[in-house]
């Protein structure tokens, strides 16, 4: 057992009444003359009272309890945990960018607007869509924008019979949740045993009530939807539109354009494909791309150019049929800037190479794991940028689950792959190595998986008790949900 880090108290437990960080507040203050007593706060909020050093040390120590791309191989399927180049952060954090107020006049913002405009153009090119709006703040908000545009499109044509959105059963949870937010009912389409959408079921499901379908391609099962043209035809003939969930764009960047596959509207996850950081949960950016017939409905603002070549924000005056604004300003500008910087460094050759090496890494890792005796969920298929391994045999005999494997991998110094998604594959690990990992890192992962399998065969308890070497042992989720403790309370 490796030495486990000591327990780091909460910042509130470091607090001492009266400790003030004077470097930050010595000269601040002033009378509250303008605020009558009745509107004033009676007792100060119980925020921690710590020194600057206390805070720096505490949050540095906490950081050391995290796995991250910068410290560990992180093959989390569907999440594209690739290296986040440091230059993207440094350059997006130049004072000229950070200091700009969001309501600044366009004439004072030509520098940032130029960057965003070029990003829009590059994303159009690489996806084959007619126009791009950068404003959605994550994949799910991109989905919302997309489905809201589908709705606006049908509404504008007076076609109000379309009440249903089709979603494959393997889809990410944000797809059905988004359809509901847009006022649609969700109909699930089953997947066939090859991992493709069940075409017969699709034919049976479409009709005059179909507003559209939300598809991920490569799908969440890590395979390319080969009959995409046929699917597009079926849905379009029924009068529905096709939505592309671009979470897996890394697999086909520059190889296949969603616009060419027949999609009417797409979102991209820049925090996946374009390497912006995940930040322990966000922020992301989920720009949407549209075909020509959806262009009038795009969310605002969009960066445009006037006759003189100057950049400006297009707003409701330029796009009166827009679905509206999805944030108070322009979405996650700083994230867009990071993606732009990354795209500049890659250039046209670099983008295609992403798909090449992401695919090579996934197929190599799949081949090695198969040779090591693991079962693939879709054995006859090529991996795209990711693939699914199923531990359903291990779950029966010797009796270890995907969760046990995942937790034990942490002890071996690897972040676990995605577990229990997609929901339709039992005991699955969805593994996405990404192009930025070397052969040596992948080989080490195979060794760890092999070693864990051997441990499982010898004594399942080794896995059941994992992890052993992390700051905490396995945590009790059930207690957390039953006895809600969502904030620290001072002991009375």
């Amino acid at each position, binding site marked *: 057992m490796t030495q486990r880090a000591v327990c780091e108290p909460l910042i509130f437990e470091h607090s001492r009444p009266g400790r003030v960080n004077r470097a930050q507040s010595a000269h601040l203050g002033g009378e509250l003359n303008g605020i009558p007593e009745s509107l004033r706060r009676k007792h100060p909020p119980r925020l921690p009272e710590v020194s600057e050093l206390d805070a720096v040390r505490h949050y540095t120590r906490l950081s050391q309890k995290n796995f991250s791309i910068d410290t560990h191989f992180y093959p989390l399927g569907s999440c594209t945990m690739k290296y986040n180049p440091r230059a993207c952060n440094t350059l997006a954090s130049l004072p000229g960018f950070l200091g700009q107020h969001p309501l600044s006049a366009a004439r004072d913002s030509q520098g940032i607007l130029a960057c965003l405009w070029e990003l829009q153009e590059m994303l159009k090119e690489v996806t084959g869509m007619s126009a791009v709006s950068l404003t959605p703040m994550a994949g799910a908000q991109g989905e919302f924008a997309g489905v809201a545009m589908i709705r606006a499109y049908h509404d504008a044509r007076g076609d109000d019979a379309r009440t249903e959105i089709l979603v494959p059963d393997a889809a990410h949870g944000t797809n059905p949740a988004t359809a509901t937010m847009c006022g649609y009912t969700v109909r699930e389409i089953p997947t066939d045993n090859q991992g493709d959408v069940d075409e017969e079921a699709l034919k049976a499901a479409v009709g005059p009530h179909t507003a559209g379908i939300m598809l991920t391609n490569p799908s969440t099962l890590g395979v390319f939807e080969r009959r995409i043209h046929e699917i597009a035809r079926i849905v379009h003939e029924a009068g529905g539109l096709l939505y592309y969930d671009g979470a897996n764009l890394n697999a086909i960047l520059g190889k296949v354009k969603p616009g060419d596959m027949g999609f009417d509207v797409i979102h991209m996850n820049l925090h996946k494909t374009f390497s912006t950081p995940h930040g322990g949960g966000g922020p992301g950016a989920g720009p949407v791309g549209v075909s020509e017939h959806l262009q009038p409905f795009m969310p605002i603002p969009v960066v445009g150019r006037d006759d003189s070549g100057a950049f400006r924000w297009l707003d409701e005056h330029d796009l009166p049929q827009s679905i509206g604004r999805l944030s108070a300003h322009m979405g996650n500008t700083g994230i867009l800037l990071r993606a732009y910087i990354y795209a500049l460094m890659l250039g046209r050759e670099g983008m295609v190479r992403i798909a090449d090496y992401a695919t090579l890494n996934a197929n190599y890792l799949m081949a090695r794991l198969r040779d090591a005796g693991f079962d693939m969920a879709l054995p006859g298929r090529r991996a795209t940028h990711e693939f699914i391994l199923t531990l359903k045999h291990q779950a029966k005999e010797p009796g270890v689950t995907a969760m046990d494997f995942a937790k034990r991998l942490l002890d071996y110094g690897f972040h676990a792959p995605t577990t*229990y998604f997609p929901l339709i594959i039992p005991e699955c690990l969805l593994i996405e190595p990404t192009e930025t990992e070397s052969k040596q890192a992948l080989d080490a992962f195979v060794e760890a998986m092999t070693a864990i399998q051997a441990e499982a065969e010898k004594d399942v308890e080794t896995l059941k008790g994992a992890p052993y070497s992390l700051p905490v042992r396995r945590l009790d*989720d*059930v207690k*957390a*949900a*039953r006895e809600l403790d969502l904030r620290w309370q001072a002991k009375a």
Partner: protein
Amino acid sequence: MSNIPSELKYTKSHEWVRIEGDGTVTVGISDHAQALLGDMVFVELPEPGTSLDAGEECAVVESVKAASDVYAPMTGEVLAANELLEDAPETINTDAYNDGWLFRIKLADEAELKELLDAEAYAELVAEEDH
């Protein structure tokens, strides 16, 4: 093998129904269903007085990894909901058929009882699903 008492009736969506003989029924989720869901952490129940249509979503049982809707097996009015579950949802795991009951309904149409599965038919359904 899950426990399927022969004196109860069942639905395809894994509710059990006990016919009380006074025009009311008691409803819960089967042992098979609780085992699939895992450790129960929260139960949302219909308020007494609510009228339900057969097949309507009327309660939610929640574990850490899943949340499942419970459907009204028959049409009627909710007479009582099991308040014990508010603080002890795990009762469904330990005693699905007795203390783990969810709600009682006053039936609007006793003929609907015919639609329910008996223990044998439900056992078959479960065996098929396990396959």
